[in-house]
């Protein structure tokens, strides 16, 4: 053996053979199938720790793992170009259900669903015109919690001026704006609302600059529906000792003294519920499922009681029952907002 290694060419051959010999062992070790269902999710470019819906989605899957003993996994996307290949990776991993998190993946998941008719898919924040039978679209009535946090802002503001920072001016985000504004006016008809769009979901520095500008103009509470731009808004509130309202998740942990409430989209609940159904053999493919206050799919953050007095919370609870019963309808666009003001004489 040693003699063999002395020759230089043999050494090379030896190393080469060593590498080659690894290959078959790797191939032979076939995957063994396990019982129980498997669910995987593909994050968008925000990643698994985005303080927002990707993280919330993963929390929902982790809960499914502990409570329902479902096998779960995630695959992060680094670039937009990764969506299709990541969806394929999870498809080949024989998941029973694959989640796409966020509307950016809409086209890709639709294509994947058409290519693999036997594979079940679901996606957050997308409603398709024609949903294939193996795909579920999940929507949230974000106007409901936004109306509630707007109401809280209207009651809590001491200066009589509040702010709204949006991500990009798309209908999905304008829902947040008009519901929030309606809630604030409903609480205090004289309130002044400054609204502005960052034209970005990621530029935290811009969010901070915009928030500081609004604080200068007299606003004391700002609601940001703008992804990571909102992190900048919360940071500004922390530095200036003003108030901010979080979005999607309970963002109180980012600034415990300043984030008074959050308009939560319980992506985790939606994902958990659909996992639970799937385990029972129910899958509502081909449909769009809408979550609202009624089923706990949206809500205001549980930490709200830390900063908001009980008297206001009581009024909020009353509004909640009115919204659930359909007596009060939160507006989702400008025309509905103007109508809302007229109807309620604000």
């Amino acid at each position, binding site marked *: 053996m040693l003699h063999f290694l002395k020759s230089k060419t043999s050494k*090379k051959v030896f*190393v*080469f053979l*060593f*590498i080659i010999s*690894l*290959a078959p062992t*790797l*191939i032979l*070790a076939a995957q063994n199938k396990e019982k129980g269902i498997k669910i*995987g999710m593909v994050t968008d*470019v925000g*990643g*698994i720790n985005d303080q927002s819906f990707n993280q919330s989605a993963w929390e929902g899957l982790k809960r499914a793992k502990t409570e329902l003993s479902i096998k779960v*996994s*995630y*695959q*992060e996307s*680094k*670039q*937009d*170009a*990764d969506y*299709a*290949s*990541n969806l*394929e*990776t*999870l498809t*080949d*991993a024989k998941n029973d259900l694959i989640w796409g998190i966020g509307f*950016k993946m809409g086209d890709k998941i639709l294509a994947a669903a058409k*290519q693999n008719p036997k594979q079940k898919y679901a996606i957050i924040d997308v409603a398709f015109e024609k949903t294939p039978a193996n795909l579920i679209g999940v929507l949230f009535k974000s106007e409901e919690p936004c109306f509630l946090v707007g109401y809280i802002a209207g009651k809590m503001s001491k200066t009589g001026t509040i702010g709204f920072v949006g991500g*990009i001016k*798309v*209908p*999905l985000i304008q829902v947040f704006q008009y519901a929030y504004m309606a809630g604030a006016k409903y609480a205090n008809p004289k309130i002044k609302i400054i609204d502005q769009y960052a*034209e*970005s*979901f*990621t*530029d935290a520095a811009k969010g901070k600059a915009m928030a500081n500008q609004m604080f200068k103009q007299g606003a004391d509470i700002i609601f940001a529906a703008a992804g*990571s731009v909102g992190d900048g808004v919360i940071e500004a509130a922390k530095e200036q000792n003003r108030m901010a309202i979080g979005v999607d998740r309970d963002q109180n942990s980012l600034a415990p003294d300043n984030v008074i409430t959050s308009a939560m989209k319980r992506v985790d609940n939606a994902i958990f519920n659909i996992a639970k159904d799937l385990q029972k053999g129910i899958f509502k493919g081909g449909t769009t499922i809408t979550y609202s206050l009624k089923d706990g799919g949206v809500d205001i953050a549980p930490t709200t009681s830390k900063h908001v007095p009980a008297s206001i919370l009581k009024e909020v609870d009353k509004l909640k029952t009115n919204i659930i019963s359909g007596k009060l309808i939160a507006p989702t666009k400008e025309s509905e907002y103007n109508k809302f003001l007229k109807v309620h004489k604000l």
Partner: protein
Amino acid sequence: MIINNKNKLKNIFFVLLSILMGFIIAAFVLKVGGFDPFEAYKIMFLGIFSKFSYISYTIIKSTPIILTGLSVAFAFKTGLFNIGAEGQFIAGATATAVAGYFLNFPSFIQIPTILLIGALAAALWGGLAGFLKSKFNIHEVISTIMLNWIALYLQNYIVMLPGFRKPDTEASYDINASGSITILEDWKYSEVGVAFTDAHQFIGDFLRPPFNAGIFIALIAAIIIYYILNKTTLGYELKAVGFNKHAAEYGGINVRRKMITSMAISGALAGLAGSLHVMGVSKNISILATMEGYGFDGIAVALIGSNSPIGCVLSGFLFGGLKYSGAKIQSAMEAPSEVINIMIGVIVFFMAIPKLFKIISEFKLKKKDGRGE
């Protein structure tokens, strides 16, 4: 000639040895992170070779970094450190996306036209850094880093322009179909195509990802760069500037102009990567939150490929494969991306230092021959 061949073999041996070392050390990293390295490598290996569509994806993901690798390597040869491949990639992608949407010729004119527009825009972007260096002596590392960010925000601005932005999205309109280089794109979704790919699993698998002609253009570019560097006066002059600026100037070479030329060609290569990405894979450009990293990966590719065009092609495939298959460990083993990045980083680090092994062995050889230092 014999000595040369022997040296070449030796080089290849050192490269293989360092790759093996990289995988062994990375295995320890995985072990420390609490993941079974054999399982991880198995997933990576199967993740590239067990299906035709995986091979197809590996090629698709390798295409842009082969080109950005070539871009960085080319500038290196002239003694310039082009960190701006990222920005030049963006410049190429943006120009091609704009041209691809607003122009609409038949394919055989459209494809070369928008490809050239992308490469040209990126050549200007890279040449600008070369110009700043030659005219005002601003170091190209500084200027290209800044130009990267300017390119990023310029793209974000252009994407949002009304008439180009697809309403209610963060992306532009798709380029016209005549500019697409995705192979058999219409056919594979047509009824005949679906029937054919169903019957022929292998071909169907291979075509399922957006497999495109980009890789062929990248390979042609590598050959052209090899030719320019080794067979032309321009290549000779550029390399002379890289070896010794002052000697080159003394020898009658216009060093300043050569710097601009080198950066422009380097930029065009990176821009080509961006253009091909738009034409073959993404079809549009969207708001970028951060750099996507195609240009920065190119630096690693150039280093591993020891700045030679052929080396860049091979290391581009290796690096592309590592990145594509490494990501698969995440869902299979629940490994956070940090662990995966460290693993890939360790492997790349070792791959980039075969020179170290060479130096050690030469040192030992000298000792054995009794020549000492």
